[in-house]
């Protein structure tokens, strides 16, 4: 199978790989078809992604797309992460063969899950503070 140079580069030299301790948001997604799985960790400052890391179990494209996903996430607001699309991820790795499209799918799923996790934590923290005040 022919992969783009960008995909191969992300696979060879994954950016931001590894777990993050005490993240502000963490989420994962698994592609049922093949068991490929990616987990995203977010460090959030002032509502924006200060650092994103990933762990991934899967084929080369899934690992590459996860790596590219951390670069896409960096600097964006958490709400923006919810609007990231499979196409954004596909473009970031220089294209995916149709039979490897699941790589983008699982990365978008994991980024969204991490973003939602952060928003839940934030809401819970705000609610907690509100309760304290009462």
């Amino acid at each position, binding site marked *: 199978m022919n*992969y783009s140079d960008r995909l*191969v580069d992300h*696979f*060879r030299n*994954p950016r931001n*790989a*590894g*777990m993050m301790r005490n993240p502000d948001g963490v989420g*994962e997604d698994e*592609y049922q*078809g*093949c*068991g*490929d*799985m*990616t*987990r995203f960790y977010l460090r959030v400052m002032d509502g924006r992604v200060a650092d994103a890391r*990933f*762990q*991934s*179990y*899967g*084929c*080369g494209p*899934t*690992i590459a797309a996860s790596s590219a996903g951390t670069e896409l996430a960096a600097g964006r607001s958490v709400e923006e992460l919810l609007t990231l699309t499979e196409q954004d991820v596909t473009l970031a790795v220089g294209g995916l063969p*149709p*039979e*490897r*499209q*699941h790589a983008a799918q699982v990365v978008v799923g994991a980024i969204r899950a991490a973003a939602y996790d952060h928003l839940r934590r934030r809401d819970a923290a705000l609610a907690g503070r509100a309760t304290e005040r009462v």
Partner: protein
Amino acid sequence: MIRRVYLDHNASTQVHPEVVAAMLPYFGERFGNPSSVHGFGRDARDGLDTARETIARFLRTGKDELLFTSGGTESDNLAVKGVAWARGSGHIIASRIEHHAVLHTCQALEAQGFALTYLPVDEFGMVDPDDAARAVRPDTILITVMHANSEVGTIQPVSEIGRIARERGILFHVDAIQTFGKVPIDLDAFGIDLLSFSGHKIYGPKGVAGLYVRKKTKMVALQHGGDHERRRRAGTENVPGIVGFGKAVEIRAREMEAERARLMALRDRLWAGISGEVPEVRLNGHPTSRLPGTLNVSFRHVESESIVLGLDLKGVAVSAGSACTSGNVEPSHVLVAMGVPLDWAMGALRASLGRENSPEDIGYVLQVLPPLVERLRRLSPAAVS
């Protein structure tokens, strides 16, 4: 220049230069149709006859018991369907780890009303001949068991299964596509009635294979037309391919024994290196009764396809134990039948060695593979960090 190491000989092999040389005249001045009576036809016929004689000698059988097909898949289809359709109905016994060319053919026959029993295998991928004996019914017409499995290399106890078949008057088909020219085959001692074997696994060309059919075996043809191949396989013979096939077999006859010992040593060295360097790794397949050049290993917490890609980028060609098509990974039916747990089956890798592999190749693989697996494991959420 990046070093290139090909360890996928169970998939296909590089055509031997002597084979290419033998084939060339049959694209040129010896291009005739072997069914033609004129000189051009006779030239082609000579090439065909010589190849058939070479292969018959190698299998210690008669020329009239061999027919040529377009590939292993056709040989398997012709053997299994040809026997089944000649009988019209009945019961067939096959192992669960047959190649899809046999397995899907059996399933197609099942859909047509034939009864099928699929024999299990043990943890090493080995069929128990007692299971075959127990599966026999009064209406059993055929037992089909592969000689060695292409994925894990386990060599099956075909002579014992053949004896069971013979004692009960049941036809016995053996898919020998992975063993022909690699390990000895004794048609009579193994009690084989039909044997599928192929050219491109033994440094011959693609698109040509053979089927041995023991005399007096009732079988129908799958394709109809002229009287080629004793009316069992209509169609003008692939003369250059068959000539090349014959040459490949001639070379195997002289190289097989030495090559077998050499490949076993390289294969075992590869396994010793991997198991010594990489934690959480297991060997899939029988530890000893195995194809000389086949090594199937599972790395836990890594998906095999990422290792295949990583090795490919280092110039090393191996194959993944589980195939991903359209985002659906089917864990190998062979590993599943062997009871290999899913998290191991997903990380299975097959290295299959061949004649051009050197000790330096194995050294190179042992240099690049362990760090690759380690790197991929560091990325993996499944691995303990």
